[in-house]
Protein backbone atom coordinates (compact mmCIF):
# COMPACT_ATOMS: atom_id res chain seq x y z
CA UNK A 1 0.00 0.00 0.00
CA UNK A 2 2.65 2.45 1.04
CA UNK A 3 5.21 0.88 -1.28
CA UNK A 4 7.27 3.41 -3.26
CA UNK A 5 6.04 3.89 -6.78
CA UNK A 6 7.69 1.52 -9.26
CA UNK A 7 8.03 2.46 -12.90
CA UNK A 8 10.13 1.45 -15.85
CA UNK A 9 12.56 4.24 -14.96
CA UNK A 10 13.12 3.07 -11.41
CA UNK A 11 16.47 1.61 -10.41
CA UNK A 12 16.41 -2.17 -10.71
CA UNK A 13 16.61 -4.20 -7.54
CA UNK A 14 20.19 -5.09 -6.68
CA UNK A 15 20.93 -8.64 -7.74
CA UNK A 16 21.04 -10.95 -4.79
CA UNK A 17 24.27 -12.35 -6.15
CA UNK A 18 26.18 -9.08 -5.57
CA UNK A 19 24.75 -8.90 -2.04
CA UNK A 20 26.31 -12.30 -1.38
CA UNK A 21 29.66 -11.91 -3.09
CA UNK A 22 30.45 -8.39 -1.84
CA UNK A 23 31.08 -9.47 1.79
CA UNK A 24 32.80 -12.64 0.57
CA UNK A 25 35.27 -10.73 -1.60
CA UNK A 26 35.94 -8.24 1.21
CA UNK A 27 36.72 -11.09 3.62
CA UNK A 28 38.98 -12.70 1.01
CA UNK A 29 40.73 -9.34 0.71
CA UNK A 30 41.30 -9.32 4.47
CA UNK A 31 42.79 -12.81 4.21
CA UNK A 32 45.55 -11.61 1.87
CA UNK A 33 47.74 -11.44 5.01
CA UNK A 34 48.01 -15.24 4.59
CA UNK A 35 50.64 -14.64 1.89
CA UNK A 36 53.70 -16.70 2.91
CA UNK A 37 55.91 -13.66 3.51
CA UNK A 38 57.21 -12.63 6.95
CA UNK A 39 57.80 -8.94 6.34
CA UNK A 40 59.46 -6.53 8.73
CA UNK A 41 57.71 -3.39 7.43
CA UNK A 42 54.01 -2.76 6.74
CA UNK A 43 53.96 -2.80 2.93
CA UNK A 44 50.84 -4.77 1.97
CA UNK A 45 47.92 -2.54 0.89
CA UNK A 46 44.86 -3.27 3.05
CA UNK A 47 42.90 -5.15 0.40
CA UNK A 48 39.89 -5.85 2.61
CA UNK A 49 39.41 -2.14 3.27
CA UNK A 50 40.02 -1.27 -0.39
CA UNK A 51 37.38 -3.76 -1.53
CA UNK A 52 34.96 -2.44 1.10
CA UNK A 53 35.39 1.11 -0.19
CA UNK A 54 35.28 -0.11 -3.79
CA UNK A 55 31.98 -1.94 -3.34
CA UNK A 56 30.54 0.96 -1.36
CA UNK A 57 31.36 3.53 -4.05
CA UNK A 58 30.57 1.37 -7.09
CA UNK A 59 27.29 -0.05 -5.77
CA UNK A 60 26.02 1.89 -2.74
CA UNK A 61 22.99 -0.39 -2.39
CA UNK A 62 24.87 -3.66 -2.15
CA UNK A 63 26.39 -3.13 1.29
CA UNK A 64 24.19 -2.26 4.27
CA UNK A 65 25.32 0.76 6.21
CA UNK A 66 26.02 -1.41 9.28
CA UNK A 67 28.22 -3.87 7.34
CA UNK A 68 31.39 -2.11 8.52
CA UNK A 69 31.31 -3.57 12.02
CA UNK A 70 31.07 -7.34 11.26
CA UNK A 71 33.48 -7.12 8.32
CA UNK A 72 35.85 -5.06 10.45
CA UNK A 73 35.67 -7.67 13.21
CA UNK A 74 36.79 -10.35 10.75
CA UNK A 75 39.60 -8.12 9.48
CA UNK A 76 40.79 -7.48 13.04
CA UNK A 77 41.00 -11.20 13.73
CA UNK A 78 43.49 -11.73 10.89
CA UNK A 79 45.22 -8.36 10.49
CA UNK A 80 47.15 -8.15 13.78
CA UNK A 81 45.49 -4.90 14.84
CA UNK A 82 43.95 -4.86 18.32
CA UNK A 83 40.46 -6.32 18.12
CA UNK A 84 37.83 -3.63 17.58
CA UNK A 85 39.96 -1.08 15.73
CA UNK A 86 38.73 -1.91 12.22
CA UNK A 87 35.21 -2.47 13.62
CA UNK A 88 35.22 1.12 14.83
CA UNK A 89 37.05 2.71 11.88
CA UNK A 90 35.23 0.84 9.11
CA UNK A 91 31.86 1.42 10.80
CA UNK A 92 32.53 5.15 11.10
CA UNK A 93 33.81 5.31 7.49
CA UNK A 94 30.63 3.78 6.07
CA UNK A 95 28.41 6.18 8.05
CA UNK A 96 30.50 9.18 6.94
CA UNK A 97 30.43 8.01 3.29
CA UNK A 98 26.63 7.76 3.52
CA UNK A 99 26.39 11.29 4.91
CA UNK A 100 28.66 12.59 2.13
CA UNK A 101 26.47 10.83 -0.43
CA UNK A 102 23.51 12.88 0.75
CA UNK A 103 25.42 16.14 0.32
CA UNK A 104 27.08 15.46 -3.04
CA UNK A 105 24.86 15.99 -6.05
CA UNK A 106 27.20 15.24 -8.92
CA UNK A 107 29.76 12.50 -8.90
CA UNK A 108 32.53 11.42 -11.20
CA UNK A 109 35.30 8.90 -10.95
CA UNK A 110 37.91 11.40 -9.76
CA UNK A 111 35.70 12.35 -6.87
CA UNK A 112 35.21 8.66 -6.04
CA UNK A 113 38.96 8.17 -6.10
CA UNK A 114 39.43 11.10 -3.73
CA UNK A 115 36.77 9.75 -1.37
CA UNK A 116 38.38 6.30 -1.45
CA UNK A 117 41.86 7.68 -0.78
CA UNK A 118 40.52 9.76 2.08
CA UNK A 119 38.74 6.78 3.63
CA UNK A 120 41.78 4.51 3.25
CA UNK A 121 44.07 7.16 4.74
CA UNK A 122 41.64 7.72 7.63
CA UNK A 123 41.44 4.01 8.45
CA UNK A 124 45.19 3.36 8.12
CA UNK A 125 46.26 6.40 10.15
CA UNK A 126 43.60 5.65 12.75
CA UNK A 127 44.76 2.04 12.92
CA UNK A 128 48.38 3.13 13.32
CA UNK A 129 47.48 5.52 16.17
CA UNK A 130 45.49 2.78 17.91
CA UNK A 131 47.95 -0.08 17.41
CA UNK A 132 51.49 1.31 17.64
CA UNK A 133 53.07 3.61 20.21
CA UNK A 134 53.52 7.20 19.02
CA UNK A 135 57.31 6.90 19.00
CA UNK A 136 57.37 4.00 16.52
CA UNK A 137 59.14 4.78 13.24
CA UNK A 138 56.36 3.48 11.00
CA UNK A 139 55.17 6.72 9.45
CA UNK A 140 57.22 6.56 6.24
CA UNK A 141 56.11 3.02 5.59
CA UNK A 142 52.54 4.02 6.40
CA UNK A 143 52.64 6.93 3.93
CA UNK A 144 53.94 4.61 1.20
CA UNK A 145 51.23 2.09 2.09
CA UNK A 146 48.52 4.77 1.77
CA UNK A 147 49.97 5.93 -1.59
CA UNK A 148 50.09 2.36 -2.87
CA UNK A 149 46.54 1.66 -1.75
CA UNK A 150 45.26 4.88 -3.34
CA UNK A 151 47.09 4.13 -6.57
CA UNK A 152 45.56 0.65 -6.70
CA UNK A 153 42.00 1.88 -6.05
CA UNK A 154 41.02 2.17 -9.76
CA UNK A 155 41.91 -1.51 -10.23
CA UNK A 156 39.86 -2.52 -7.20
CA UNK A 157 36.97 -0.43 -8.42
CA UNK A 158 37.13 -2.12 -11.85
CA UNK A 159 37.17 -5.49 -10.12
CA UNK A 160 34.08 -4.67 -8.06
CA UNK A 161 32.33 -3.38 -11.17
CA UNK A 162 33.19 -6.53 -13.12
CA UNK A 163 32.04 -8.79 -10.27
CA UNK A 164 28.82 -6.80 -10.02
CA UNK A 165 27.89 -6.75 -13.71
CA UNK A 166 28.80 -10.38 -14.34
CA UNK A 167 25.65 -11.66 -12.67
CA UNK A 168 23.31 -9.26 -14.44
CA UNK A 169 21.32 -10.29 -17.49
Amino acid sequence: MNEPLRSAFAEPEPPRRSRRIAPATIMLGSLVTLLPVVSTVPWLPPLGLMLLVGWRLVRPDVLRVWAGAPLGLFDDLVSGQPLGSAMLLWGVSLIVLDMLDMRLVWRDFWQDWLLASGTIAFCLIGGRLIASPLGAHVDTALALQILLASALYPLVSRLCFALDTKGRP
Partner: protein
Amino acid sequence: MAPPRKPRPGFSRRAQFGLFLGYVAAATGALIGAIVLVLSFLHPPAYIAARGILREATTPVSSGLHWVRRQVADIPPGVGGYFGVMGENRRLKAEREAEKKLLARARQLVIENIRLRRLLQLRDREGETVATARLVNATSASTRRFATLNAGLWQGVRAGYPVRGPEGLIGRVLEVSPNTARVLLAVDPESIIPVRRVRDGMPAIATGRGDGLIEVRVAGIANMPYRAGDVFVTSGAGGLYPPGIPVARVMRNARDTAEARPLANPDALDFAQVQRPYLLPPARPAPPESAAKK
Protein backbone atom coordinates in the same frame (compact mmCIF):
# COMPACT_ATOMS: atom_id res chain seq x y z
CA MET B 1 27.39 11.81 -13.84
CA ALA B 2 24.65 11.76 -11.25
CA PRO B 3 25.52 9.64 -8.25
CA PRO B 4 24.13 6.12 -8.21
CA ARG B 5 21.68 6.95 -5.47
CA LYS B 6 20.57 4.60 -2.83
CA PRO B 7 16.87 3.86 -3.20
CA ARG B 8 15.07 6.67 -1.41
CA PRO B 9 12.50 5.63 1.12
CA GLY B 10 9.89 8.03 -0.30
CA PHE B 11 6.78 8.42 1.82
CA SER B 12 6.69 4.83 2.97
CA ARG B 13 6.84 4.82 6.74
CA ARG B 14 8.16 1.28 6.73
CA ALA B 15 11.02 2.12 4.37
CA GLN B 16 11.87 5.26 6.35
CA PHE B 17 11.89 3.27 9.55
CA GLY B 18 14.08 0.59 7.98
CA LEU B 19 16.60 3.20 6.84
CA PHE B 20 16.64 4.76 10.30
CA LEU B 21 17.15 1.35 11.92
CA GLY B 22 20.08 0.75 9.53
CA TYR B 23 21.82 3.88 10.81
CA VAL B 24 21.06 2.93 14.41
CA ALA B 25 22.60 -0.50 13.76
CA ALA B 26 25.66 1.08 12.11
CA ALA B 27 26.25 3.45 15.02
CA THR B 28 25.74 0.59 17.48
CA GLY B 29 28.24 -1.55 15.56
CA ALA B 30 30.87 1.20 15.69
CA LEU B 31 30.15 1.69 19.40
CA ILE B 32 30.55 -2.03 20.09
CA GLY B 33 33.83 -1.83 18.16
CA ALA B 34 34.99 0.96 20.47
CA ILE B 35 34.03 -1.05 23.57
CA VAL B 36 35.79 -4.18 22.24
CA LEU B 37 38.83 -2.01 21.50
CA VAL B 38 38.94 -0.63 25.04
CA LEU B 39 38.61 -4.18 26.39
CA SER B 40 41.45 -5.41 24.23
CA PHE B 41 43.67 -2.71 25.73
CA LEU B 42 42.60 -3.33 29.32
CA HIS B 43 42.92 -7.10 29.02
CA PRO B 44 45.10 -8.01 26.00
CA PRO B 45 44.68 -11.81 26.19
CA ALA B 46 40.86 -11.49 26.07
CA TYR B 47 40.46 -12.59 22.45
CA ILE B 48 43.12 -15.29 22.23
CA ALA B 49 40.51 -17.99 21.61
CA ALA B 50 38.80 -16.20 18.71
CA ARG B 51 42.10 -15.42 17.01
CA GLY B 52 43.36 -18.93 17.70
CA ILE B 53 40.38 -20.65 16.04
CA LEU B 54 40.71 -18.52 12.92
CA ARG B 55 44.48 -19.06 12.86
CA GLU B 56 44.03 -22.82 13.13
CA ALA B 57 41.71 -22.69 10.15
CA THR B 58 43.83 -20.44 7.94
CA THR B 59 47.41 -21.50 8.70
CA PRO B 60 47.23 -24.64 6.51
CA VAL B 61 46.60 -22.32 3.54
CA SER B 62 49.66 -20.29 4.46
CA SER B 63 51.75 -23.40 4.95
CA GLY B 64 50.76 -24.67 1.52
CA LEU B 65 51.60 -21.35 -0.10
CA HIS B 66 54.89 -21.32 1.81
CA TRP B 67 55.70 -24.77 0.43
CA VAL B 68 55.03 -23.49 -3.10
CA ARG B 69 57.26 -20.48 -2.45
CA ARG B 70 60.09 -22.75 -1.23
CA GLN B 71 59.79 -24.98 -4.29
CA VAL B 72 59.94 -21.99 -6.63
CA ALA B 73 62.85 -20.46 -4.71
CA ASP B 74 64.72 -23.76 -4.97
CA ILE B 75 64.79 -23.78 -8.76
CA PRO B 76 67.57 -21.24 -9.52
CA PRO B 77 70.08 -22.66 -6.98
CA GLY B 78 69.22 -26.15 -8.23
CA VAL B 79 70.11 -25.23 -11.81
CA GLY B 80 73.28 -23.46 -10.68
CA GLY B 81 74.27 -26.41 -8.50
CA TYR B 82 73.88 -28.87 -11.36
CA PHE B 83 76.50 -27.08 -13.42
CA GLY B 84 78.81 -25.98 -10.63
CA VAL B 85 79.05 -29.28 -8.80
CA MET B 86 82.32 -30.58 -10.29
CA GLY B 87 84.34 -27.49 -9.49
CA GLU B 88 82.81 -27.30 -6.06
CA ASN B 89 83.74 -30.91 -5.34
CA ARG B 90 87.39 -30.24 -6.16
CA ARG B 91 87.44 -27.07 -4.10
CA LEU B 92 85.83 -28.75 -1.07
CA LYS B 93 88.33 -31.63 -1.14
CA ALA B 94 91.22 -29.17 -1.07
CA GLU B 95 89.55 -27.24 1.72
CA ARG B 96 89.12 -30.39 3.80
CA GLU B 97 92.82 -31.21 3.53
CA ALA B 98 93.71 -27.69 4.58
CA GLU B 99 91.42 -27.73 7.59
CA LYS B 100 92.50 -31.07 9.03
CA LYS B 101 95.18 -29.43 11.13
CA LEU B 102 92.76 -26.77 12.40
CA LEU B 103 90.23 -29.43 13.35
CA ALA B 104 92.74 -31.35 15.43
CA ARG B 105 93.66 -28.19 17.29
CA ALA B 106 89.98 -27.34 17.87
CA ARG B 107 89.34 -30.81 19.32
CA GLN B 108 92.22 -30.33 21.69
CA LEU B 109 90.82 -26.96 22.78
CA VAL B 110 87.36 -28.39 23.41
CA ILE B 111 88.79 -31.09 25.65
CA GLU B 112 90.89 -28.57 27.51
CA ASN B 113 87.91 -26.28 27.90
CA ILE B 114 85.80 -29.08 29.39
CA ARG B 115 88.61 -29.90 31.82
CA LEU B 116 89.00 -26.27 32.91
CA ARG B 117 85.27 -25.82 33.34
CA ARG B 118 85.15 -28.89 35.51
CA LEU B 119 87.94 -27.43 37.59
CA LEU B 120 85.95 -24.23 38.06
CA GLN B 121 82.75 -26.20 38.69
CA LEU B 122 80.80 -24.01 36.24
CA ARG B 123 77.29 -25.13 35.49
CA ASP B 124 75.78 -24.30 32.13
CA ARG B 125 72.18 -23.88 31.20
CA GLU B 126 71.79 -24.70 27.56
CA GLY B 127 68.85 -23.20 25.70
CA GLU B 128 66.65 -26.24 25.31
CA THR B 129 64.85 -26.39 21.95
CA VAL B 130 61.20 -27.33 22.31
CA ALA B 131 60.06 -27.30 18.71
CA THR B 132 61.39 -26.50 15.27
CA ALA B 133 58.93 -25.09 12.78
CA ARG B 134 58.49 -22.50 10.08
CA LEU B 135 57.12 -18.97 10.26
CA VAL B 136 54.54 -19.03 7.49
CA ASN B 137 52.91 -15.61 7.41
CA ALA B 138 52.91 -12.21 9.05
CA THR B 139 50.69 -9.19 9.53
CA SER B 140 52.07 -7.38 6.49
CA ALA B 141 49.25 -4.82 6.30
CA SER B 142 49.42 -3.68 9.93
CA THR B 143 51.96 -1.52 11.73
CA ARG B 144 52.35 -4.26 14.34
CA ARG B 145 54.75 -7.09 13.58
CA PHE B 146 53.32 -10.51 14.36
CA ALA B 147 54.14 -13.74 12.58
CA THR B 148 52.40 -17.10 12.61
CA LEU B 149 54.43 -20.14 13.63
CA ASN B 150 53.46 -23.54 12.29
CA ALA B 151 53.64 -25.25 15.72
CA GLY B 152 51.56 -24.90 18.84
CA LEU B 153 50.46 -26.47 22.11
CA TRP B 154 50.65 -30.03 20.77
CA GLN B 155 54.29 -29.49 19.82
CA GLY B 156 55.12 -28.15 23.29
CA VAL B 157 55.09 -24.44 22.44
CA ARG B 158 53.81 -22.21 25.24
CA ALA B 159 53.17 -18.48 25.47
CA GLY B 160 56.30 -16.54 26.41
CA TYR B 161 58.82 -18.95 24.89
CA PRO B 162 61.65 -17.29 22.92
CA VAL B 163 61.96 -18.00 19.18
CA ARG B 164 65.29 -17.94 17.38
CA GLY B 165 66.61 -18.61 13.93
CA PRO B 166 70.05 -19.92 12.95
CA GLU B 167 71.46 -16.37 12.81
CA GLY B 168 69.86 -14.86 15.88
CA LEU B 169 66.81 -13.96 17.87
CA ILE B 170 63.48 -13.69 16.03
CA GLY B 171 61.09 -12.88 18.88
CA ARG B 172 58.87 -14.58 21.39
CA VAL B 173 55.60 -16.48 21.42
CA LEU B 174 52.56 -14.40 22.39
CA GLU B 175 49.55 -16.67 21.88
CA VAL B 176 49.25 -20.40 21.25
CA SER B 177 46.53 -22.61 19.84
CA PRO B 178 46.81 -26.41 19.33
CA ASN B 179 48.82 -26.33 16.10
CA THR B 180 49.82 -22.72 15.59
CA ALA B 181 51.30 -19.86 17.56
CA ARG B 182 51.53 -16.11 17.20
CA VAL B 183 55.04 -14.71 17.49
CA LEU B 184 55.91 -11.13 18.43
CA LEU B 185 58.90 -10.28 16.22
CA ALA B 186 61.88 -8.47 17.73
CA VAL B 187 61.32 -5.55 15.30
CA ASP B 188 57.79 -4.87 16.64
CA PRO B 189 57.55 -1.42 18.27
CA GLU B 190 56.41 -3.03 21.54
CA SER B 191 59.15 -5.65 21.80
CA ILE B 192 61.81 -5.05 24.48
CA ILE B 193 64.88 -7.28 24.80
CA PRO B 194 67.66 -6.92 27.39
CA VAL B 195 71.00 -7.18 25.56
CA ARG B 196 74.70 -6.65 26.13
CA ARG B 197 77.53 -5.66 23.82
CA VAL B 198 79.76 -8.54 22.82
CA ARG B 199 82.90 -6.37 22.88
CA ASP B 200 82.75 -5.27 26.53
CA GLY B 201 79.53 -6.66 27.99
CA MET B 202 77.88 -3.23 28.32
CA PRO B 203 74.20 -3.78 29.14
CA ALA B 204 71.59 -2.18 26.90
CA ILE B 205 67.96 -2.49 25.87
CA ALA B 206 66.90 -3.35 22.34
CA THR B 207 63.47 -2.15 21.24
CA GLY B 208 61.87 -2.55 17.84
CA ARG B 209 61.36 0.57 15.77
CA GLY B 210 58.63 -0.69 13.49
CA ASP B 211 60.53 -0.05 10.26
CA GLY B 212 62.54 -3.26 10.28
CA LEU B 213 65.33 -1.89 12.47
CA ILE B 214 66.07 -2.19 16.17
CA GLU B 215 66.91 0.68 18.51
CA VAL B 216 69.59 0.03 21.12
CA ARG B 217 69.51 2.18 24.26
CA VAL B 218 71.96 2.27 27.15
CA ALA B 219 70.56 0.53 30.21
CA GLY B 220 72.96 1.86 32.82
CA ILE B 221 75.35 4.78 32.50
CA ALA B 222 74.28 7.37 29.95
CA ASN B 223 76.48 8.74 27.19
CA MET B 224 78.04 5.56 25.99
CA PRO B 225 79.43 5.70 22.47
CA TYR B 226 78.46 3.05 19.94
CA ARG B 227 80.69 2.08 17.07
CA ALA B 228 79.40 0.89 13.74
CA GLY B 229 79.55 -2.90 13.72
CA ASP B 230 79.02 -3.39 17.46
CA VAL B 231 77.12 -6.65 17.90
CA PHE B 232 74.59 -7.08 20.70
CA VAL B 233 73.53 -10.44 22.12
CA THR B 234 70.83 -11.27 24.65
CA SER B 235 72.06 -10.84 28.21
CA GLY B 236 69.72 -13.28 29.92
CA ALA B 237 68.46 -10.54 32.27
CA GLY B 238 64.82 -11.04 33.11
CA GLY B 239 65.16 -14.77 32.58
CA LEU B 240 63.17 -15.01 29.36
CA TYR B 241 65.78 -15.07 26.60
CA PRO B 242 68.76 -17.41 27.06
CA PRO B 243 72.00 -15.37 27.10
CA GLY B 244 74.23 -15.20 24.06
CA ILE B 245 71.70 -15.19 21.21
CA PRO B 246 72.79 -12.59 18.63
CA VAL B 247 70.22 -9.81 18.26
CA ALA B 248 71.47 -6.85 16.22
CA ARG B 249 74.45 -5.06 14.73
CA VAL B 250 74.85 -1.27 15.07
CA MET B 251 74.77 0.47 11.69
CA ARG B 252 76.68 3.71 12.37
CA ASN B 253 78.56 5.48 15.14
CA ALA B 254 76.20 7.06 17.67
CA ARG B 255 75.73 8.08 21.27
CA ASP B 256 73.02 7.04 23.77
CA THR B 257 70.75 5.41 21.22
CA ALA B 258 71.80 3.68 18.05
CA GLU B 259 70.04 2.18 15.08
CA ALA B 260 70.86 -1.46 14.62
CA ARG B 261 70.05 -4.02 11.97
CA PRO B 262 68.56 -7.28 13.29
CA LEU B 263 70.78 -10.27 12.59
CA ALA B 264 68.03 -12.85 12.12
CA ASN B 265 65.89 -12.61 9.03
CA PRO B 266 62.42 -13.99 9.85
CA ASP B 267 61.61 -14.17 6.15
CA ALA B 268 64.46 -16.59 5.40
CA LEU B 269 63.13 -19.89 4.08
CA ASP B 270 64.48 -21.64 7.11
CA PHE B 271 63.32 -23.13 10.37
CA ALA B 272 62.73 -21.19 13.56
CA GLN B 273 63.50 -22.84 16.90
CA VAL B 274 61.26 -22.38 19.89
CA GLN B 275 63.28 -22.61 23.10
CA ARG B 276 62.38 -22.93 26.74
CA PRO B 277 62.66 -19.69 28.72
CA TYR B 278 66.07 -19.36 30.35
CA LEU B 279 64.66 -19.27 33.87
CA LEU B 280 61.05 -20.27 34.42
CA PRO B 281 59.04 -17.59 36.22
CA PRO B 282 58.70 -18.24 39.95
CA ALA B 283 55.61 -20.24 40.90
CA ARG B 284 52.74 -18.33 42.44
CA PRO B 285 52.57 -18.62 46.21
CA ALA B 286 49.87 -21.06 47.31
CA PRO B 287 46.73 -19.42 48.69
CA PRO B 288 46.72 -19.34 52.49
CA GLU B 289 45.15 -22.50 53.88
CA SER B 290 43.35 -20.84 56.79
CA ALA B 291 41.33 -18.60 54.51
CA ALA B 292 40.26 -21.57 52.42
CA LYS B 293 39.13 -23.58 55.44
CA LYS B 294 36.87 -20.90 56.87
